[in-house]
């Protein structure tokens, strides 16, 4: 009995040992050979992949069959898109999807607006390929109901947005045959000639290693104006009330403070009163209003002309600026400028009422 048991045990032991060895060898192979795989997951079929493989590349990779006209796109756009993006794609609540493209840009492939400091940054002036527009509408729009559009609808909407940017004519039909051929106004406006592509890239700006007497004079060039003190709410409640520091209580203006503030506050406000034009740019009014021309809203000179003889023009305009309005100058509504300080609104209104010069 003992002999046969011993024999059985040694066989078992050998088997176990061999098994261990075999497993170890298999693991080494799995890690070291291309053929060896861990073997997790399951094969994806072509039909399965097609369900999620929705990306479209500038070179035509992934382009879907379909077609749609500018006219079809307009109907869809007015129904599904205009509420956020504006009737003419002008909404500056989000990235404007139209505006700023100059006729010459289509020839050069460089959006000239981007070269000027206050130039409009819109889909039209920034985007380099139409495929990206198609891809994005298809994958992510409408914002609250993404991936609900058919390929034909996406073609139609893409065509309409291109038309809003004066890239294709009103009778244009966009399809899988011509999507990659659309010449965008900023197609030559991108560069990869910079150091941030790769870990080994060469930085374009190098700091100084100076340790002593590095600068002669230090001048403060920018600080938060007094009115912005509490703009991010009370900083005392945004810092742990324990340890070496406390958050500043920005709700408090005590006597010593308000005595100290005016000189500087007046200085900060002074440029706004003296030069409301600076305020217009700073508050982004000029995104929608030109000084002497219509952009999305009317030019300031036109507003000034209309209310020249209105006795309460200043208070009327303050109200319009703060509360917004619709229908006076066309269908595009002016959103209420609730973040604008009363003083600033007043300064702008006074400037307009005074002739906008």
């Amino acid at each position, binding site marked *: 009995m003992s002999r046969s048991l011993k024999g059985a045990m040694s066989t078992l032991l050998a088997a176990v040992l061999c098994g261990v060895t075999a497993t170890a060898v298999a693991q080494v192979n799995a890690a070291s050979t291309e053929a060896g*795989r*861990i073997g*997790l*997951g399951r094969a*994806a079929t072509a039909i*399965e*992949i097609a369900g999620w493989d*929705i990306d479209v*590349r*500038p*070179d035509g990779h992934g382009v879907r069959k379909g077609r749609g006209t500018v006219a079809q796109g307009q109907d869809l756009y007015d129904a599904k898109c205009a509420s956020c993006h504006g009737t003419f794609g002008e909404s500056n609540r989000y990235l404007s999807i139209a505006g700023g493209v100059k006729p010459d840009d289509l020839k050069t492939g460089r959006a*000239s607006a*981007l070269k000027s400091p206050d130039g409009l*940054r819109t889909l039209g002036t*920034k985007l*380099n*390929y139409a*495929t*990206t527009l198609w*891809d994005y509408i298809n994958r*992510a729009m409408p*914002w609250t109901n*993404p991936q609900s559009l058919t390929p034909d609808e996406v073609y139609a909407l893409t065509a309409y947005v291109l038309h809003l940017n004066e890239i294709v004519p009103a009778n244009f039909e966009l399809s899988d045959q011509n999507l990659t051929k659309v010449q965008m106004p900023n197609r030559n*406006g*991108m*560069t*990869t000639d910079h150091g*941030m592509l*790769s*870990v080994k890239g060469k930085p*374009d*700006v*190098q*700091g100084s*290693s100076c*340790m002593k007497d590095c600068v002669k004079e230090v001048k*403060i*060039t920018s*600080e*938060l104006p007094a009115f*912005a003190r509490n*703009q*991010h709410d009370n*900083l005392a409640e*945004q*810092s*742990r009330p*324990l340890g*070496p*520091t*406390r*958050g*500043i*209580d*920005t709700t*408090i203006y*005590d006597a*010593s403070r308000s005595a*100290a*503030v005016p000189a500087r506050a007046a200085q900060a406000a002074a440029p706004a009163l003296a030069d409301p034009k600076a305020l217009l740019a700073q508050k982004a009014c000029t995104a929608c209003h030109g000084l002497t021309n219509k952009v999305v809203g009317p030019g300031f000179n036109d507003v000034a002309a209309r209310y020249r003889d209105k006795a309460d023009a200043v208070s009327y305009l303050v109200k319009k600026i703060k509360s917004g309005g619709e229908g006076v100058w066309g269908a595009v509504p002016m959103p209420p400028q609730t973040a604008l300080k009363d003083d600033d609104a007043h300064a702008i209104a006074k400037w307009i009422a005074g002739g906008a010069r």
Partner: protein
Amino acid sequence: MNSFREKSTRPAGRVVPAPENHLGAGTIRLAKGRRSFLATGAAAGLAAAAVPLAVRAKDAPLAPAPWTRSLGAPVVATGYGMPSKFESNVQRRQSPGLTPQPQASVSFTPLQNLFGIITPSGVHFERHHSGAPEVDPDQHRLLIHGLVKRPLILSMDDIMRFPSVSRIHFLECGANSGMEWANVAVPTVQYTHGMLACSEFTGVLLSTLLDEVGYDRKNAKFILAEGSDGSALTRTIPIEFALNDVMVVYGQNGEMLRQENGYPLRLLVPGVQGVSSVKWLRRLEVGDKPWNAREESLHYVDLMPDGTHRQYSGIQEVKSVITTPSGGQMLQGKGYYEITGLAWSGRGRIKRVDVSADGGRNWQQARLQDPVLSKALTRFRLDWNWDGGPALLQSRAVDETGHIQPSMPQLRAVRGTRSIYHNNAIKTWSVQPSGEVWNVQIA
């Protein structure tokens, strides 16, 4: 260089030292509405009413606290512990007016109140493009296809069985400090630098998965990563990154990812702007050309003064910021302070950090806290004795490639003020004699 705030004789919200320590938060709240009372020198009486235990007796034996003479909470009072109720100020926050919709927005990490280098997952900054979806991990799948021999569908069970790695890396949004290109715009380090976090991530190296599907070694040049959220966000990842240290991540700081940070699966591209670390990851496609996705053509491109946009500008270059003392904080009287902050580089390790208290005239080398890891936040510290006068605090980091963090004027000279992205300039905090610290820029 002095601002009006220095003329303020008695700053608002100043903490009054009690005999053995500063007053606590409760007393400060009580004192807020009664400044004149405090100012007349009746502070001792007020303090006595608020903190009888600690303050009342001038020279008497310390009395046991109420919590010393009673029973505390049982274990599992909360199955998942939360910070002390006294820590309620330490929160993620939005910058008012920055974005029109909270689902396509950003919240900022409260860097001013964090220690060390690890960001607690609950205050890790958020950036969503179509809100944070609630993804069912049982139903979630990762599809890997394109230029591969074996397109695969992986469940979370599959992915969590692969050989795993844990690594500490920072995540910084490309637009971090983007509001500061032209001028100062926001008051605290939470808003100037808070699209920044650092975590220990656990997951599978992307190279492991690429081997598993048998990627085309000759033609594979780029990988498309796609989220399963409503924006189905896509980014192009160069293959050199993918084969190096990119991870497919499910773990963060010892637990699963939080919903707002990509639960149950996200990509992590160390050292590269956060948008590439696609959250709620559902698909990886191996390809031979970049995709020019919306978030790499309309956004996340850097506008240069000549009107060109820098595209595929991924690397987050060397950067640092002082977190204490920092904007919106108030120093509690003259004397010793530890200046401390964070430094990081998308190109590797931090080699050195210098600190200046006089607006960059003179610099002193700071101490670096171990561990100093590649593409991770590094904590630096320097002793400082505040003499009560005005000071301009700055930090300047150098990474292992020798890249020195530039000043704001140096950066602007090359990139202008419209870049939005990749502002890695030296940050200046102005300490005023009142003790208040404010965000400024200097030349």
